[in-house]
């Protein structure tokens, strides 16, 4: 599973960073950055799904 943040949707609420700091970091411009390029390690998939679900703007994409 890969993760992407739609930069035009993200408004810097930071729920993803709080939920999965291993995967997301809020940048200086208030847009979330994905820290892991390519496929996520299996053990982080559940956290990624939780971040996807919680994102207020639904700005996270999970690519199987």
């Amino acid at each position, binding site marked *: 599973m890969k993760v992407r943040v739609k930069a*035009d*949707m993200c*408004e*810097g*609420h*930071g729920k993803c960073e709080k939920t999965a700091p291993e995967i997301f970091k809020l940048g200086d411009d*208030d847009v979330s950055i994905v820290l892991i390029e390519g496929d996520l390690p299996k053990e982080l998939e559940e956290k990624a799904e939780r971040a996807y*679900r*919680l994102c*207020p*703007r*639904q700005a996270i994409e999970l690519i199987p």
Partner: protein
Amino acid sequence: MTAPAIEPSDINLNNPGHFQREEFHELLRILRHRDPVHWNPPGEVSNGFWSITKYEDILFISRRPETFISSKGIAGPGIKPEKLAELDFAAQQQNAGGNASIITMDPPRHVKMRRLVNKGFTPRAVNAMEPEIRRITNEILDRIAGKGECDFVLEVASQLPLAVICGMMGVEQEDWPLMFELTNKVLGSGDPEYQTDIPEEERGTGQAARLTAMKGLQTMLEYFRGVLEDRRQHPRENDLPTILLEAEVDGEKLTEGDILQFCFLLIVAGNETTRNAISGGLQVLCQHPDQKRALVEDPSLMDTAVEEILRWTSPLHHMARTATQDVELRGKTIRAGDRVLMWYPSANRDEDVFPDPYRFDIRRTPNDHLAFGIGEHFCLGAGFARKELKVMFEELLRRFPDIEVVGPPERLRSTFINGIKHMPVRFTPER
């Protein structure tokens, strides 16, 4: 003898009386348990609509802004097409949504328009405003400090969000009461208290509501036409009207109509809902004295308390969408063109998401409520709402820890806004 059980088929949520009398939580519970995708038949003038009451289903709809669009209207069921011709201009305008602002705009234009202003609303921008919000809050509390009693809505709850949004819009302080009055006309149009332009004997009808909303809208647009005229000559720093005048989308400036609708939306959305969360928050804290005491003694509980106040009060009863294609949901077929109403207070009491949902708990964690909606149209002002609630309750409970609601709150007659118009409170005055 017990009262006869209410069947889902008996329930018509297009009745503001249910909301004014606070019967709606019970009706929503019945629908959520027994008919979570519920067809509400048409009324004499209004369309039929689907009532969506499960958390998961509101998530499903909110994640599909191209399938469930906002541009046909976001409040209520709308008016039957065949009735439009019989009604006057006001009703037609209301149904069409007039010129669109971002709340009644669909992708892809919605995001482009929203991005013109959203940097001013991020958590970072809101945190920078905190000292100013605290200063305004204490000015408001200074004015009631010696009185010992007041109308909490008029003198406290309404004043903070009004001051913050008017400040961002560059509205002069002498005009804040006008913005308050016009917001009430637009968002509380169905309540006879705000139908002051209608002869008394004609108040309380659907037509009175439509005319009141239209009058409020037109007066507000006229006001901002003057503001824009001023800003063209005298642009200001950190001023939303100036930003909108200078902004471009796809290489084109916004039309005056676009900008006026944007200003109108920011003012009304910025002051009505947070007002009601503050009033409703104090009401529910006073109904739970042990939790109010805990919060007075330990203000570090404030962040979770604010989220619980938002879940509990759900300041907007619903948002409406219109399906652009047939969609199957829980065995029902929502047809293209059908209106769906997403009932947030129901999602926020959904037993599948919130353990013991009818218990008010200022420590509730996690608390992923949908009071601000979710997705494409997630409340732009959520950060300000949270901050205003937090600062208001910190300062209010610090200065007036014994504040009590001393009479029944007067509730707004509306299927859209969970409003409180008046709420008498008493407290030990400061010396």
